[in-house]
């Protein structure tokens, strides 16, 4: 088992390297020139060239990539010129390891920016996750147990409707009606949990509802399907033949078998969402990682793009590994090594 984990970790690292190379290469082939964009007013060819040197963009791509990778392990300075550092120590930005780069367009270390964006995304993601699991899986179980009756049918129909609408539509509907017009929910905004937990909770309700609503719709259908499939299994007949109460048959025997694939799907969905829910964040004006990624792509802010892509990839790879390990724990027939 340990060897399996180690092997997977090596594979993950290899994959992250590959992703970073591809991302680097892709955006360096892009049309914009950060040197030109950040050189200030009255840019002459000379000042752009000087800016390019200042930003370290005149070095070959491979060197830049090597410096980026090196920056993950030791600290870097922006700009990197030792003469400049000696002469103007106060104009040097110091980037401790792990260094994710420096964004010339935002004149900040990427790590600082991510540190601001990540808590927002984390808050949205975790809150929605709890809500959609509780309601999605819970209602899915109810629908399966009451199969064919009106409760089941109405749940399936309403989840189909919810599922069919794009996220931004649901978000806008929620924002417009639930917050602005009917004033059921307060204006969504982000307050750090350390500052004011109550405000944090209130401000996040709408994004949670939107995201959870969209995902729960899918999970109701999924859970219902897996439950129904499991309910036809022979081992449940054996459980009843042993004289077990129906409650035990459903919650101990059926659920355990039915939830295994749901754990897999939920883990992967969660891993993907850690990269940020771009649409939800944009509609509700939350400065999370998803929104930042969209902005960065728009203005070709390469360091930010690279960092966000790598973080997203890291989460997905980690989620995959965790989910695979969990599957091996839940289902004893699965042998991982």
């Amino acid at each position, binding site marked *: 088992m340990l060897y399996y984990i180690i092997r997977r970790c090596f594979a993950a690292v290899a994959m992250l390297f590959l992703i970073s190379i591809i991302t680097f290469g892709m955006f360096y082939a892009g049309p914009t020139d950060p040197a030109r964009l950040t050189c200030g007013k009255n840019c002459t060819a000379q000042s752009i060239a000087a800016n390019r040197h200042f930003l370290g963009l005149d070095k070959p791509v491979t060197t830049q990539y090597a410096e980026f990778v090196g920056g993950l392990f030791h600290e870097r300075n922006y700009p990197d010129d030792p003469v400049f550092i000696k002469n103007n120590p106060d104009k040097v930005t110091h980037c401790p390891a792990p260094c994710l780069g420096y964004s010339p367009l935002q004149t900040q270390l990427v790590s600082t920016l991510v540190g601001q964006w990540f808590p927002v995304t984390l808050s949205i993601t975790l809150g929605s996750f709890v809500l959609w699991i509780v309601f999605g899986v819970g209602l899915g179980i109810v629908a399966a147990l009451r199969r064919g009756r009106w409760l089941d049918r109405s749940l399936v129909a309403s989840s189909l409707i919810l599922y069919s609408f794009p996220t931004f539509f649901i978000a806008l509907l929620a924002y417009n009606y639930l917050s602005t017009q009917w004033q059921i929910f307060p204006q969504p905004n982000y307050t750090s949990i350390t500052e004011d937990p109550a405000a944090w909770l209130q401000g996040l309700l709408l994004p949670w509802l939107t995201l959870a609503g969209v995902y729960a719709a899918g999970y109701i259908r999924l859970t219902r399907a897996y439950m129904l499939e499991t309910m036809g299994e022979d081992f449940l007949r*054996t459980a009843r033949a*042993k004289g077990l109460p129906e409650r035990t048959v459903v919650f101990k025997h059926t659920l355990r078998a039915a939830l295994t694939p749901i754990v897999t799907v939920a883990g992967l969905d969660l891993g993907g969402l850690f990269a940020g829910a771009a649409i939800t964040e944009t509609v509700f004006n939350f400065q999370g990682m998803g929104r930042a990624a969209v902005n960065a792509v728009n203005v070709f802010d390469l360091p930010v793009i690279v960092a966000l892509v790598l973080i997203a990839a890291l989460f997905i790879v980690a989620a995959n590994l965790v989910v695979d390990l969990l599957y091996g724990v839940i289902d004893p027939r699965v042998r991982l090594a």
Partner: protein
Amino acid sequence: MIQDTLTADPLAARSRKPFLQVNDLHVHFPTDDGLVRAVDGIDFTLERGQTIGIVGESGSGKSVTSLAILGLHRRSKAKLSGQILLEGEDLLTVSDERIRRLRGNQMAMVFQDPLSALHPYYTIGAQIVEAYRCHHDVKKDVARKRAIDMLERVGIPNPNLRVDHYPHQFSGGMRQRAMIAMALVNDPKLLIADEPTTALDVTVQAQILELMKDLQKEFGSAIIIITHDLGVVADVADDIIVMYGGKCVEKGSVDEVFYTPQHPYTWGLLASMPRLDKVRTDRLDPIPGNPPSLINLPSGCAFNPRCAHRSEVEGDRCRTEVPELLEVGPGQSARCHIDVARRRDIYAQSAGQKP
């Protein structure tokens, strides 16, 4: 225990209520395609320490009968009528709670495919412990000890180790033994075995049947064994019921039915078996045709489309009139229009004709 049934006075034994008595059991399933008459009037009795075999093709209603005894049919899906008297108590009219208490406790079932019948995520020990603690209020370690004892009793080597293994870690024969252990953990008075050996090799099959006979001697349980294998019935059963189209077409003691069968279907079943003691011919001797659909049973006798001896009955009675189950010998009954003496002749002839 067994001593109860071994009274000195046979008259007294007969006048006492039988351990299990099934009277005119009907199990019908209303479906969109029509009413499925899975069981259409079954009667039999069973005593402690005895074994009865229910034989028939797939779709003859054998398993449905056993599930009806255990009360495992959903009331919304199945319509049951008749009586199932277990020690005088009618299982069809008692409360759900009462029958749940009896299930796994006084009456238990062993299923056909132990790999799918056992929960794949729980160890064998955990499942046996669960069966035990469901009906007895004991601590976990006491129940675990009981599970290990049962595994040892059914012949599983190294029970201390194997009690913590999962079903997929057992071989087929061992799994079936484990399932028998789980069924017997509460010392049930009635054991229903639904095709317990169908999924196993022949040698393992013999071991399992021996095990069941030994356990019956030890526990004195009544056993209902459901199978389509006549060899199994001949080995373990005292009495036999032959089912066809949801009805019992012949019943009696195993000796009587095997040596002097009184129904054309039974003749067909016995003739279809390949036998080592007869000269080998090129072809086997199957019963022509297919089992009937339980929604559209043939009119009259359900077996009539496949019966080679319909001409023995005058007129069209086989096609128009459902035969009654009539006694044809001491303790033996059959459901056929052909005259009893004529049937004996036909069978004697065909038995003599066989090379």
